[in-house]
């Protein structure tokens, strides 16, 4: 996670891919491909409708055992095989519209994928507050200062 100069937050995920970038790009623009790789973990199936052109819309629905994750957005940059940029709104997450940029970098017979997900703005935390997140987190700020170090948590780092 990074905080950008304008006070927004973004996530950058980089990953080496074992095939040339043309093929990786294709896997992002082919609904059949998306259906396959958009459903890891508890997701049982995924459906994708993609209109890959600037201004075109997409909709990806991932069905889990208990929940349905639905995401929609609009393509803003379509530059094969180097770059895709689209808006991203999760219908179950807070109502903020964020932006995802996917860069496909050639690395010989392989490639590297750089995903930048940004636009998690400070201003929009108001919406998180409504959901109770921020309110609680804020109240704890003072509490934290006096509380003993947690001996147990829900998370771990390996």
């Amino acid at each position: 996670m990074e905080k950008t100069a304008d006070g927004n937050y973004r996530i950058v995920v980089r990953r080496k891919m074992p095939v040339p970038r043309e093929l990786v790009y294709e896997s992002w623009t082919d609904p059949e491909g998306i259906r396959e790789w958009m459903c890891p973990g508890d997701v049982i199936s995924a459906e994708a409708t993609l209109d890959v052109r600037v201004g075109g819309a997409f909709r990806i629905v991932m069905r889990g055992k208990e929940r349905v994750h639905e995401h929609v957005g609009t393509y803003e940059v379509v530059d094969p095989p180097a770059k895709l940029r689209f808006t991203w709104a999760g219908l179950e997450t807070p109502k903020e519209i964020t932006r995802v940029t996917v860069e496909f970098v050639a690395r010989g017979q392989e490639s590297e994928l750089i995903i930048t997900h940004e636009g998690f703005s400070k201003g929009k935390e108001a919406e998180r507050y409504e959901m109770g997140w921020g309110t609680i987190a804020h109240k704890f700020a003072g509490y934290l200062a006096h509380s003993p170090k947690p001996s147990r948590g829900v998370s771990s780092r390996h």
Partner: protein
Amino acid sequence: MVEYQHSAELDRVFSALADPTRRAILRAVAACPATINQIARPFPVSLNAISKHVMVLERAGLLRREIKGREHHCWIEPRPLREADVWLEYYRQFWELRMDALATYLVRKYKGAKKGGAHGKDR
């Protein structure tokens, strides 16, 4: 920053916070640690119902409880909510999981039974 190892943990946090009564309980306990009886007082539901909500929060790691005699004392465990960066963490994990799945998919599709030989020049 908190790093979640399993999406199941994060899911528990999200579903625990999805309920307005549970959020109200958390807010109350955040302001002041309390017993289950004290927590239940302002709510128009049974003590049993509140007790179940508390259990859900406890399982999600958002609330801690200590039993002293017959009293259950509850207080907040703020760690899962610290910095309110849970959504960022959710999406970081979301993309990393999908990148793993994408790499697997590409290997299966283009490298198939081949033994690591360079393949898939261009289409």
